[in-house]
């Protein structure tokens, strides 16, 4: 019998780690904290069911996002990820307001000094080419995973997530 060490989940749950253990690829034994936190928030059985319902190539990303959510919930037991979303939305709104003010300022400058070459801010090719943000109502696509380190990338967007607004008020305060 080989001496392979059990995965972090089987170690924590004190059971034999089967060859086809669903947790083993995603919860290596050298990172026990990762499974501990997911187990604390979601429960091993729920995580196992969620992974079983997904195709194998999506499980790594699912585990990453579950770990992220679990960490958020442990750090902030009341608001969890929702607190982060609320904060980020406020930040985005504030920046967009500053942007609107800056754009109004540049229009004023251009209008006051007509002989200067009119440069339309929104026609900046860098803005148009590299990101779709020039139309603020367009849904966003995951273009980089620098924050979340997903194994795969996906361009699937659910508009319900974009339009759904639970944050008419500041939930965090």
């Amino acid at each position: 019998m080989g001496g392979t060490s059990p995965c972090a989940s089987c170690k924590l749950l004190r059971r034999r780690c089967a060859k086809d253990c669903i947790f083993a690829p995603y919860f290596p034994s050298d990172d026990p904290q990762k499974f501990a936190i997911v187990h604390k928030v979601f429960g091993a059985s729920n995580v196992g069911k969620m992974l079983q319902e997904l195709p194998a190539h999506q499980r790594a990303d699912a585990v990453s996002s579950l770990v992220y959510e679990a960490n958020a919930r442990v750090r902030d037991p009341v608001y969890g990820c929702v607190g982060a979303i609320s904060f980020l939305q406020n930040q985005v709104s504030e920046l967009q307001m500053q942007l609107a003010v800056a754009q109004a300022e540049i229009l004023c400058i251009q209008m006051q000094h007509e002989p200067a070459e009119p440069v339309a801010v929104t026609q900046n090719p860098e803005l148009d080419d590299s990101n779709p943000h020039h139309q603020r109502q367009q849904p966003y696509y995951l273009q980089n995973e620098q924050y979340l380190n997903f194994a795969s990338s996906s361009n699937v967007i659910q508009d319900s997530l974009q339009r759904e607004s639970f944050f008419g008020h500041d939930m965090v305060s």
Partner: protein
Amino acid sequence: MISGRCAACKSQRRKCPPDCIFSPYFPPNDPQRFACVHRIYGCSNVGKMLQQMPVQMRAQAVDTLYMEARWRIEDPVYGCVKLISQLHQNLGDTESELAKVKALIAFHKLQISQVNELHQPNLDASQSNIVEQFQFDYPAQNHYPWFIN
């Protein structure tokens, strides 16, 4: 008495005691709410979480658990984390757009001040304000909470 059980106790097929921890937050007329939360977190985990927090925070906690559970059911791979990722992206894009516009403002002001100086050479003070235009009101890095890099 069977009628009067909260949605959690109904779902778990048990008696709903007067001090049931779930009943203020899972009314019987909204079984879907508990079903979502139970599916993702499990009844026992939710009970433990609620017990560990002050009573006045529990309603808010249940609301956020329900939201996250719904997101996870709609998107079993990414849940609400996809939205967070999109917001990060949004934040970065808006920040860089703002920086570009501010640079453009500074450039225009510099042009104007140079033109003015040709006509009236004593306007040095206007140039010293140009650099300040590059600063904007983004919170300092060390003020970011844990979910911002």
